[in-house]
């Protein structure tokens, strides 16, 4: 068992060194593609944070004071529900103090000072309103504009700004382009790893011939090559992860130094989402390596 392991690692290491240039190309391609994928995931997450307030077709938010009583809230709700032709009553959602605080965490992630000012005692709660699909925008505006005067404890009613519309279009474009680039680069990484392994096997065809003649199993012959590809993918993923974490840290600290009204306050990613991205980059890197080397090792074993 031990001699098998040491054989496997010795051969793998020797081969990695012998094929240095090709190996480097494969690792760099894997790293770049995974880095772009990581950035894509973070950027999309930033978009989602920025857009989170308005997700799910919400087009109107009614902010209510923190100290509204259940009866007062019911009055607001009744008013909203009295217009089922314009407002989709089933999708009407009330965010209480806890839910509003949680949302603020995302919305003001890049603006810690504002975030600090919001507490369970002062944060407004909110009704999120999704209009009926065929309701006219004017009608919605008309109804909503009367709320502030007519209803108790309503602070304000908000509509999505033009900026939000632009952002959500932009998100779609960014998602499409970056995913496409990632896919193409990942595919070239697989091809490069495949080619590295093919070259490595060709360089060792005499050894492989002897191994087959003396009765080494195909798996025994294959495993060092597959491991070699796996490690190329893994090393690429580690570089990519380092790059992604650094880029995210740099961007977050940049956004936090923007003025509070920059409009980018939510455009950062915090919490353990970056770790989650890194985890998947590593899994994907190893997968890319395993696919590239596994197919090569099976195909070229009959040398």
């Amino acid at each position, binding site marked *: 068992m*031990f*001699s*098998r392991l040491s*054989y496997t690692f010795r051969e793998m290491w020797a081969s990695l060194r012998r094929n240095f240039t090709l190996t480097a190309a494969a690792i760099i391609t894997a790293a770049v593609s995974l880095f772009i994928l990581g950035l894509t995931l973070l950027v999309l997450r930033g978009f989602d944070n920025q857009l989170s307030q308005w997700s799910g077709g919400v087009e109107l938010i009614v902010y209510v004071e923190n100290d509204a009583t259940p009866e007062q809230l019911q009055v607001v709700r009744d008013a909203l529900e009295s217009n089922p032709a314009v407002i989709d009553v089933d999708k009407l959602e009330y965010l209480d103090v806890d839910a509003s605080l949680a949302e603020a965490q995302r919305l003001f992630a890049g603006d810690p000072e504002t975030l600090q000012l919001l507490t369970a005692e002062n944060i407004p709660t909110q009704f999120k309103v999704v209009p009926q699909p065929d309701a006219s925008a004017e009608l919605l505006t008309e109804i909503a504009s009367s709320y502030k005067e007519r209803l108790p404890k309503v602070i304000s009613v908000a509509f999505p700004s033009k900026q939000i519309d632009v952002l959500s279009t932009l998100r779609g474009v960014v998602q499409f382009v970056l995913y496409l680039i990632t896919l193409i680069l990942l595919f070239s990484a697989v091809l490069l790893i495949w080619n590295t392994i093919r070259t490595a096997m060709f360089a060792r065809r*005499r*050894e492989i*011939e*002897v*191994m*087959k*003649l*003396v*009765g*080494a*199993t*195909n798996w*025994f*012959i294959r495993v060092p090559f597959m491991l070699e590809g796996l490690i190329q993918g893994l090393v690429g993923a580690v570089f990519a992860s380092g790059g992604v974490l650094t880029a995210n840290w740099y961007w977050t600290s940049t956004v936090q130094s923007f003025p509070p009204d920059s409009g980018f306050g939510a455009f950062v990613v915090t919490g353990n989402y970056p770790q989650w991205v890194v985890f998947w980059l590593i899994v994907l890197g190893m997968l890319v390596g395993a696919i590239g080397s596994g197919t090569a090792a099976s195909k070229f074993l009959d040398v």
Partner: protein
Amino acid sequence: MIKLENVTKSYSTEVTALQDASFDVAKAEFVFLVGPSGSGKSTLLRLMNRQEKPEKGEVWVAGRNINDMPDAKVPHLRRNIGNIFQDYKLLANKTVFENVAFALEVIGRPKHVIRQQVPAVLDLVGLSGKQERFPHQLSGGEQQRVSIARAFVNRPLILLADEPTGNLDPTTGEGIMRLLDRINKTGTTVVMATHDQRIVNMMRKRVIQLDRGIIVRDQARGVYE
């Protein structure tokens, strides 16, 4: 030990490398395969360790039909068969010791077995002083001895030799022949393809002669022609 029944092998529609070949080789027997170039000697040897599969007929080795054998079992078959070639097939970047040890290493033999068996077999082939040399530092005869050591180190039941003396001068070739004879006397079955008339006539072993893929003679204690 080895049995062929009506074996036919062709590489393409025109080339029939072997036609309806049948014979038996008993345990510890020594057999020469002779015949002109292209008559099918190498093909016959390759059929015996499943480097090739026949179109028709059956090949039995050590009591098992090796044509029906699943691919996954072939490595285990080959561990019982040593192979020797005209061009030695040694690995240039490994020493004599490492070349022989390699054969044990890649079938998962533990280190202590390797440390014990490799010097023993190198001693048997008369190379104990040259363990640390590389193949290019050896004569052709010595290189062939290394390849024999590698083929024999796992104590196979059968040794298949394809023109092992083909690249060697007569005296050196004779030395290799005596070594193979000695190995045969330990109970190992040996099948050797050769063009070496002198050696065949000197040894007076069983001779199977091929001509264009057909067995034309199978003679105990035979001569080359």
